[in-house]
């Protein structure tokens, strides 16, 4: 009988996983991702080596959750959600990428137990929602705001920077870098636009040689025969072609009947260029920076006029320069009186390590600064940059939202206890879900302690007891392996980041939990890769 045969309603290659199987597969995928990044959490977290698949096998050593997750190709849809979440966390607040993944994964582990107890996923979800609200309330209550007091606020920022950096490669020199980062961010005077902070990596030296430079550094060379040092510079920033200036009227082409005419045309072209250079110089600038190439001929003309010409500053460089020097990006040169030139006190060529850089000091926008990172290997430099970026992001967020909370597992324990408390008062199955939520929150300090190689069960229970007694500034001291008052240790985190971790993780876990069916379309057929 035909009707007894299985009827495939999907295209060949497509699959469907239902209820238990689907849930299983998404739990397994998400938990695997969580376990992968789990060991990088906390001040004693381990790094990962990422080896890229292309033929030169570039290696990255990192401790940054978002970087790790971005690099691994995942196939499991639930795992993809977690990767997505960490990416968003990175975009939005810049730090806490590992925590968010680990928390989501711990929540799902709890959910797995609850599902095994035949709790309906929706009941778990509604329990979690109540738990999140309660946890947020507790977090908000514990938050301190020192925004009004500049000295104390700076101390806060230093603490936050130190806490963020302590889990990274920069931990050995965290004071140095915390100082760098806080100085850089405070220069921004609260607007939080990280564009004005430039990070340049130069191989060689040690991490401690890294410096914060006022002003702006450009990794470009000055044209031949041109002044290498200009004081009181008037800068014209341009985006214009300085090769052969093409005629843009559509469909035009050169058609001549004699060689002599080509020569004439060439001359005309040359003249056009000369005119253009003349116009540029008429602006009264002594430094000319172009986004596009400057050919030899105009370069020579600039040299003759004693103007420093810098070619091929990339787009970002030009925009940043325009921002910091206060000039505008120019493309036409007919109205010199309307053009705003950029200013800075001194432009000179400096040599750091082996690289020549152009340094702009005394720029109009006093907020700009450059951090020069030095390090022994490219990997160290890259990782240092990522760590610094994290710290800068968190600091910039904190400048905007000045509230801070305590780190070292303290806030997690605080939230967990608040949620447990609520669970005790809640009748019904939702209470089970809330207890699960509290357990998941408690897992974060547990993992931090585990990663540092301490007896996590002992420490976390001590911590819980301390919080229960009302000493709710107690956290983990991972240098000595005991619980201690985090206010003394100065382990501080940004309220914004913590809150985002909590919300994003709960959102992601809920999303995965609500799925009871996975439908996979047949993978698109691709032509086999021939391997270049």
């Amino acid at each position, binding site marked *: 009988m035909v009707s007894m045969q299985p009827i495939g309603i*999907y295209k060949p290659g497509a699959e469907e996983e239902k209820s238990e199987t689907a849930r299983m597969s998404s739990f397994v995928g998400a938990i695997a991702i969580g376990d992968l990044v789990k060991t990088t959490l906390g001040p004693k977290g381990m790094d990962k080596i990422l080896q890229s698949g292309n033929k030169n096998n570039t290696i990255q050593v990192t401790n940054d959750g978002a970087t790790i997750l971005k690099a691994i190709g995942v196939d499991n849809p639930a795992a993809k959600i977690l990767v997505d979440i960490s990416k*968003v966390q990175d975009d939005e607040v810049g730090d806490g990428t590992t925590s968010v993944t680990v928390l989501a994964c711990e929540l799902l582990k709890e959910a797995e137990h609850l599902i095994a107890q035949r709790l309906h996923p929706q009941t778990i979800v509604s329990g979690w929602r109540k738990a999140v609200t309660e946890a947020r309330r507790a977090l908000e209550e514990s938050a301190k705001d020192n925004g009004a007091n500049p000295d104390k606020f700076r101390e806060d920022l230093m603490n936050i920077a130190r806490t963020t950096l302590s889990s990274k490669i920069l931990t050995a020199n965290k004071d140095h870098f915390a100082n760098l980062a806080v100085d850089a961010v405070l220069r921004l005077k609260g607007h939080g636009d990280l564009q004005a902070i430039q990070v340049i990596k130069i191989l060689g030296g040690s991490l401690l040689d890294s410096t914060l430079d006022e002003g702006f550094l450009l990794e470009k060379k000055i044209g031949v025969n041109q002044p290498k040092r200009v004081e009181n510079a008037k800068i014209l920033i341009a985006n214009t072609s300085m090769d052969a200036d093409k005629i843009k009227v559509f469909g035009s082409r050169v058609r001549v009947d004699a060689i002599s005419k080509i020569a004439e045309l060439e001359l005309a072209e040359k003249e056009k260029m000369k005119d253009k250079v003349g116009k540029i110089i008429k602006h009264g600038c002594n430094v000319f920076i172009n986004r596009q190439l400057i050919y030899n001929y105009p370069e020579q003309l600039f040299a003759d006029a004693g103007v420093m010409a810098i070619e091929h500053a990339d787009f970002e460089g030009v925009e940043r320069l325009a921002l910091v020097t206060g000039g505008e990006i120019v493309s036409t040169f007919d109205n010199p009186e309307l053009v705003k030139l950029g200013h800075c006190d001194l432009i000179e060529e400096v040599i750091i390590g082996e690289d020549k850089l152009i340094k702009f000091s005394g720029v109009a926008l006093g907020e700009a600064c450059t951090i020069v990172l030095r390090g022994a290997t490219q990997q160290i430099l890259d990782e240092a940059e990522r760590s610094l970026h994290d710290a800068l992001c968190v600091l910039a967020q904190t400048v905007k939202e000045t509230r801070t909370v305590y780190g070292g597992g303290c806030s997690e324990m605080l939230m967990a206890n608040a949620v447990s408390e609520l669970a005790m008062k809640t009748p019904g199955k939702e209470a089970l879900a809330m207890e699960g939520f509290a357990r998941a929150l408690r897992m974060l300090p547990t993992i931090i302690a585990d990663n540092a190689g301490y007896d996590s069960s002992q420490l976390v229970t001590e911590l819980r007891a301390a919080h229960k007694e009302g000493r709710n500034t107690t956290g983990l001291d991972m240098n000595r392996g005991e619980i201690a008052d985090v206010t003394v240790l100065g382990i501080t985190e940004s309220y914004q980041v913590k809150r985002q971790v909590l919300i994003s993780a709960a959102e992601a876990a809920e999303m995965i939990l609500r799925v009871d069916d996975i439908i996979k379309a047949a993978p698109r057929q691709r032509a086999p890769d021939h391997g270049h």
Partner: protein
Amino acid sequence: MSMGSLAFDEFGRPFLILKDQDKKSRLHGIEAHKSHIMAAKTVASTLRTSLGPKGLDKMMVSSDGEVTISNDGATILSMMDVDHQIAKLMVQLSKSQDDEIGDGTTGVVVMAGALLEQAEQLLDRGIHPIRIADGYEMAAQVAIGHLDKICDQFPLDQSHRERLIETAMTTLGSKIVNRCHRQFAEIAVDAVLSVADLERKDVDFELIKMEGKVGGKLEDTMLVKGVVIDKDMSHPQMPKRIKDAKIAILTCPFEPPKPKTKHKLDVTSVDDYKKLRVYETEKFDEMVKQVKDTGANLVICQWGFDDEANHLLLQRQLPAVRWVGGPEIELIAIATGGRIVPRFQELTTDKLGKAGIVRELTFGTTKDRMLVIEECHNSRAVTIFIRAGNRMIIEEAKRSLHDALCVVRNLVKDHRIVYGGGAAEIAMSLAVSQEAEKISTLEQYAMRAFADALDSVPLALAENSGQAPIQTVAEIKSRQVTEKNPRLGIDCMNKGSNDMREQHVIETLSSKRAQIMLAVQLTKMILKIDDIRSSSENVSL
């Protein structure tokens, strides 16, 4: 391949009627029916668990590995990689419900699946498919007639915003956004009310735009009474905030003109070259001047700008936005009351759009920027701006909001409502089974089957909410009869009341009616197919 598809002549040799007959498979008669019903049931059973406020989500992985999570029936089905013919019909069914009403896409598929399931049992008893189809048709008439009887009026004006919000909340109840339930409902209602034409009872969806941006919280989602475009100023140094903007909306590029006719411009001498050079600079100057002369202080352009033109604009203090897409341009034009101008020459002052404020929004640590045009001349265009943790939630929020918008729109269009939570289905089921007793022919069985099928919606609702389905439905059924109250339904949210009026679980009459009609139509169509031929095994593979 069944033997029935081959004919033999008197010597026992196979007799080929169709080309490549042996390569084609054929199903006919009862087997064809069974196979169709099987396929339809499979699709329906996938969707069944997504029904109702406690329904679960489905995760779809596209052929490129992109993940989508949704519990919107139409979305799930459209992303299922379905191959079976009948399953495809089910996909279209939910799509047509989506196009027509915009909500109830899951319900219609579950209903059709249940009807077919009942039909299968009738087929086993030997009832002819056409009789079943007729019976269903009769039952549907009865059901819809009964719907008209039990429907309630839902008067609508600005003062009834609260009731509208409650309705929208019902729709959003089943979606992932129900954390900011109330807020989203308010957004949906306000959006519809601000674009609705209450006189003509019409809502132009073109005026409601949804923009999503990854990052932030769902709570940050807002309704912008104006237009949001995912673009920024063409030059980084143009002002980020323009008050009392007069907007020139252009569809011509700030580039040297390109005649449509084919032409060649030969540069044969130095003179020509110089002339062209002059012409080029003049052209840019002229374009900017033409715009400036009209008094515009913002240019929205569909095309790109030349670097030089861009700088000229900056110099003349004329902020500009480039590469704005076609639909967005239209929206801006509608919102600001401006005219879309295809040529610089035709730009005049009265063709400019007006807006109270145009500003740039920046987000997070990334360099994303968006432009918001607010306080527009024509306040009717609105944009719903969605923020959420990741792209998937945004997409899901968009779909949920779309559903909510549709429901509110339907209420604006038609004031009649019925109660949800399975209440209407149970009421219809009772009416149909009562009516069935009066029929003396075979169709009586089909009608009873129809009544049973109607029960499947409340059953699924109860099941998804973690209640004992049969017991709950039976209880409500008996209460509906004894209390003569068609508003009793499943208490999905455990609020302690079965009266759907108290819970504000309402659906529009038009939506429910369309559900029944579409489901019955599809069922009838499937029942009428008794032969299916397909060239089996794609030979090319």
